């Protein structure tokens, strides 16, 4: 937002690829997570049935979202939770600010919430003089680096331990050159502990909101959401409204899928249920739309709202692994981000549906069976129809369509290309041809198959 020099995914990932050793390391790290996920999912005989069930529950819930949200609100209110509805990011951020101001609170701890990234809450609060401490270790690291997370589950997966050591040396006073993960984690722990004990407000995300009980569930491996929420006078939880599910019975299916898909663990370390504030505490829940009802109204893209934010599509995506999360220039990177972001702003995210080979692996790993690669294809059509393409490309495509329905013209074009490759290769093999930068052109055979066929199988046509 507000950036003057717009760089698209192709340009940003080309930047990432300037350090090939780092690309290899990034790719192998995420591939390791994908393999863990494979092993764990293959250990469950009814894995595909679980995915099917989860997908069906989400379809059902999204089709009846009004009823489920009202039921949830009623039960949550009865539990003593304050409910706020936020139509957009600004309204969400404003709600958080007002709650904090009412309590004269200027510092808060925050556990992982991709929604607050989507709403740019940290910037909003910091610009108004408040201090936010991200308490998930990965998020703390990127916060110290003044960067956004590059992955929704593994926010600092793009950083090497030596770089984290350098950051901690500057910000937390660890010895220079320290790169031992255990010692660095301990340093972060000590620093965070002080903050947990002194901050009066905690903000958490929400993984699932259960309509029948009015409670919500927050999953973390570090227990940082619990640490924050249990110590704070005010607990604020932020959720996209699509996080609602019918009941606890359905929750079990999602919990089995979530951790296995995300990190290849059998279960998340902490799956904490928040039903009511403890005595003397205030518990607020903000239900955010921010484009979700618009997406719900798009037939082709509604299923994207089934997402449970496991990140499996990122780990499996061969493009994500080799371009890094920041190349997607949006809060939720990777394949799922590429079908969510254009709904928020077509002009800004018009490049993302094209940042894919449509290999389809994302749809295969998705625990709620979102047809991600088909939606990428469909977004391409929508973006072009809405004019989010450049005129040169449109002209080229029109010329291509014209040629492809005229065999003689195509034959002439093909002949010219082969002729050039044979007799004037420099016309094609030059740095202006993006193919040629790292790849040779195919050899140009003397004749096409059609010519060969005409010569060798004359009269056999049709």
């Amino acid at each position, binding site marked *: 937002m507000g950036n003057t020099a717009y760089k698209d995914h192709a340009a940003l990932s080309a930047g990432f690829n300037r350090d090939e050793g780092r690309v290899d390391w990034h790719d192998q790290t995420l591939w390791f997570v994908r393999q863990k996920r494979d092993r764990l999912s293959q250990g469950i005989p009814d894995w595909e049935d679980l995915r099917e069930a989860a997908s069906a529950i989400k379809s059902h819930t999204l089709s009846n979202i009004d009823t489920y949200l009202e039921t949830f609100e009623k039960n949550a209110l009865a539990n003593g939770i304050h409910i706020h509805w936020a139509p957009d990011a600004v309204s969400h951020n404003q709600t958080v600010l007002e709650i904090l101001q009412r309590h004269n609170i200027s510092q808060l701890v925050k556990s992982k919430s991709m929604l607050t990234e989507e709403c740019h809450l940290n910037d909003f609060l910091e610009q108004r003089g408040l201090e936010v401490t991200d308490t998930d270790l990965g998020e703390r690291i990127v916060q110290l680096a003044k960067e956004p997370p590059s992955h929704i589950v593994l926010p600092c997966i793009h950083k090497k331990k030596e770089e984290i050591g350098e950051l901690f040396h500057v910000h937390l006073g660890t010895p220079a050159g320290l790169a031992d993960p255990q010692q660095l984690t301990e340093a972060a722990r000590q620093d965070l502990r002080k903050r947990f004990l002194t901050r009066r407000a905690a903000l958490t995300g929400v993984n699932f909101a259960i309509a029948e009980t009015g409670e919500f569930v927050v999953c973390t491996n570090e227990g940082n959401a619990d640490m924050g929420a249990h110590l704070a006078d005010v607990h604020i939880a932020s959720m996209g409204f699509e996080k609602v599910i019918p009941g606890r019975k359905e929750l079990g299916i999602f919990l089995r899928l979530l951790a296995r898909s995300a990190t290849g663990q059998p279960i998340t370390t902490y799956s904490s249920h928040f039903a009511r504030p403890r005595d003397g505490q205030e518990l607020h829940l903000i239900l955010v739309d921010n484009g979700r009802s618009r997406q719900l109204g798009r037939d082709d893209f509604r299923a994207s709202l089934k997402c449970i934010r496991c990140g499996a599509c990122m780990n499996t995506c061969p*493009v994500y692994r080799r371009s890094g999360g920041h190349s997607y220039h949006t809060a939720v990177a990777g394949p799922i981000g590429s079908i969510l972001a254009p709904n928020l702003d077509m002009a800004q995210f018009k490049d993302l549906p094209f940042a894919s080979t449509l290999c389809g692996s994302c749809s295969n790993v998705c625990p709620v069976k979102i047809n991600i690669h088909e939606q990428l294809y469909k977004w391409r059509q929508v973006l072009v129809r809405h004019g989010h393409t450049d005129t040169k490309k*449109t002209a080229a495509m029109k010329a291509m369509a014209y040629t492809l329905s005229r065999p003689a013209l195509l034959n002439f074009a093909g002949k010219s290309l082969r002729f050039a490759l044979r007799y004037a290769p420099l016309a094609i093999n030059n740095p202006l041809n993006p193919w040629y930068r790292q790849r040779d052109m195919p050899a140009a055979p003397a004749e096409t198959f059609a010519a060969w066929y005409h010569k060798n199988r004359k009269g056999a046509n049709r």
Partner: protein
Amino acid sequence: MITESKAHAGRRGKIGLFVPCYVDQFYPSAAIATLNLLEKLGYDVGFPSGQTCCGQPLANSGYEHLTAPVNNHFISLFAGYDYIVGPSGSCVLHIKEHLHGMQEAEAARIRSRVFELVEFLTDVAKVNSLRAHFPYRVGLHQSCHGQRGLGLSSMSERTLPAFSKPAQLLSLVAGLELVPLDRIDECCGFGGTFCVTEEAVSAKMGKDRVADHLKNGAEYITGADLSCLMHMEGILKRQKSQVKVLHIAEILNAETIHATV
């Protein structure tokens, strides 16, 4: 819809040979091998002249709305055949998923009768022996559109029984040794126009895919999709590698040593 002359001319049915544009221009030997293989199996194979392209480059670029004339041209060429067979999984998948036109009934018939060569050989022709001989170590590239789109092989992300139609056919070739790969079905990064619009990532993906085959000792890289192979060939040649790419049809048709045009 099926005319007598076309439908029952061959012993086993009449095939319309679909030769994608870039195969026609750059890899005629793969198309010749495809033709020879199908004829050896007793099919009557026709090659409708005036073929252009399936329209996939337009559609994948977001211009599916411009494909109508290309689609109608395709339908007019391939109407009436018992089967339409092409040596390219990606183009076949595009036809299967997106071919519509003025003659919608005929378009639907083509969508249900278009086959990529490998699946035609295993599922329709039920090939269980071949007279092929290819004494080399071969790496099999599972092209995504063939594998995940057409279901030519099981996929490493799914928890379903393992199978591979191309590997099944290659196992019938005398002397051929299939090399194992570290990542059995990773995308090569070709991706149609992706290969130029996202040049950096595309080339890196191609280099990584080729490296896996080289590391595991492949002398040839084969597959059911020449577009992926063309991309990997470009990288191999740039690296001055002796390893070659070869469409699977040329291996399955290699009775002595593979033919070159």
